[in-house]
């Protein structure tokens, strides 16, 4: 949120770029909504990381030998993809937070 340093000064009016009137900030309220939505989403993606099955050394019935190894490798890739997505969401949250703060 924009910080008010002088309590006697009129509060800056939040408006969107291109709106009429005095422009004291480029803050977009949709960024606040985005920030609010990214928190729970980040937690959800975090839970998703945990729900990807862990690697298994045990041979599981139908998956033996090369098939088993290939499946484990595919699972590893999947886990990596979810982790990268989690990082992207975390980055989006941090960037949005900064945009709101500096807006």
């Amino acid at each position, binding site marked *: 949120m924009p910080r008010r340093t002088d309590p006697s000064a009129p509060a800056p009016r939040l408006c*969107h*770029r291109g709106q009429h009137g005095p422009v004291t900030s*480029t803050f*977009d309220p*949709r*960024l606040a*909504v*985005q920030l609010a*939505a*990214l928190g729970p*989403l980040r937690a*959800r*993606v975090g*839970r*998703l990381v945990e*729900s*990807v*099955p862990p690697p*298994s050394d*045990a041979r*599981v*019935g*139908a*998956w033996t030998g090369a*098939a088993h190894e290939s*499946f484990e490798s*595919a*699972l590893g*890739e*999947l886990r990596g*993809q*979810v982790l*990268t*997505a989690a990082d*992207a*969401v975390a*980055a*989006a*949250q941090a*960037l*949005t937070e*900064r*945009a709101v703060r*500096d*807006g």
Partner: protein
Amino acid sequence: MADGLTISGGGVVAVATDELIARSLALDHVASEAEGCVGQLAGIAALGAGSGVFSSPDALSAGREVERAGALLAGVRSSSAAAAAALREAATNYGRLERALENAGQQLSATLGYAAGWFLPGLALSVLPASVIAVGALFAAAVLHPGGARAARAAMGDWLRQHRGVLSSPFTVALLRSAVSSADDAGAGLARVPPGLARLLGDEGLGLTGLETSAALLALVGSRFGVFAETPVTVRPTVRALGVSPPTGIAERVERIPDPKGNAYGEQLVIERYSVEGGPDRFEVYLGGTVDFSPVASGEVWDLTSNVAGIAELPAGSYRAAREALADAGVTPSSPVVFTGYSQGGLIATALASSGDYATEGLVTVGAPAGQILLPERLPVIAIEHTDDLVPAFGGHRVNHESVVVEREAFAGVPLPADRAVPAHDLAVYRRTAELADAAVSDRLARAVSAIDWREEISRSETTSYLAERG
């Protein structure tokens, strides 16, 4: 002890370990959650869509990260859904392969058995069920040495304990199952029945001859020499108690199976009767395992004679005793009944369910040599077997593909107890498997359990133990 379960049957071709099922369900969950995340990210991305782009570089970068996360999670959704489908497909293919191998193995063992009977009558004896040979030796010992039956039994017990490693091998169990199933073919070879006719009459053809024929022959010939000779039986209730709770799931039922050796009077059966509001009384019936392994029938009904007669699908002493106990407990042809049996109890439970004389609503067998007894297709059946337990193999190849079979190698990678000949057949070990089965994630097992469980309100309940005796 190993805790991995393999679940097959239930009218489905797939054979899957519970771990495999759990993994495919986990991947389904990942796909569904990833889809939800993709939806949320699309909503977030749409916030900036109407106004073109945000002004600040951070906001722009955040938008790009949101889009990247959306693309990645869309990939996760499709990859995990594909992996879950591949797992299920693999389980199905594995099941198809296993069934094809089983059929091929059955054909091969039948052919080999027939050839052995035809060309090498001496060798044919070696493919006859191990029980026949063991019991024959026991009988010979009993005849040749005064009072020798007990000594022979003890000697056989020692021998079995010394060779428990071989006896508890899943390979031995599979071999025994094939040998047992091809005993009729070896007999056909010995009798010089034309091969085409033998195949037509056997399990692989019309199924007119099979394991039950071999067992019936054994009972018929044995009874002439005083072994496996059936006798009249009597049944009496011993202990009655009120206020029992209905069982749910598999483990609770298996827990209630009586252990005749540990009971006050040696009761082999327990029948629970539940009065239900607005409906016929319900019954839960529990049957224990073999008590006496002597081939000569004495006072105990749950003996080897009943085992042979039961596998022969003849009215075994324990089968007749169970029917009498059911009648005494008030079971009518319209009373809903669930049978649960261990070892010989499972064999008898299967025979009772197969008879069509009872309104059977479910059957749970534990380590039962009952693979060849044909059951109604729509009957919910759960068969628990250890792949290192010899006893179920005496029932031959399974004919009920609708039954849900839960298998576990009880002593995989674990030292075998020194005091047991076939430790994987212990009821206590099966109780552990029943607990694992209740905790399993398999859909078809859950469906079978749900079909066997009932939830009506009860107004009165009573449990009665029964003791059956010969004579």
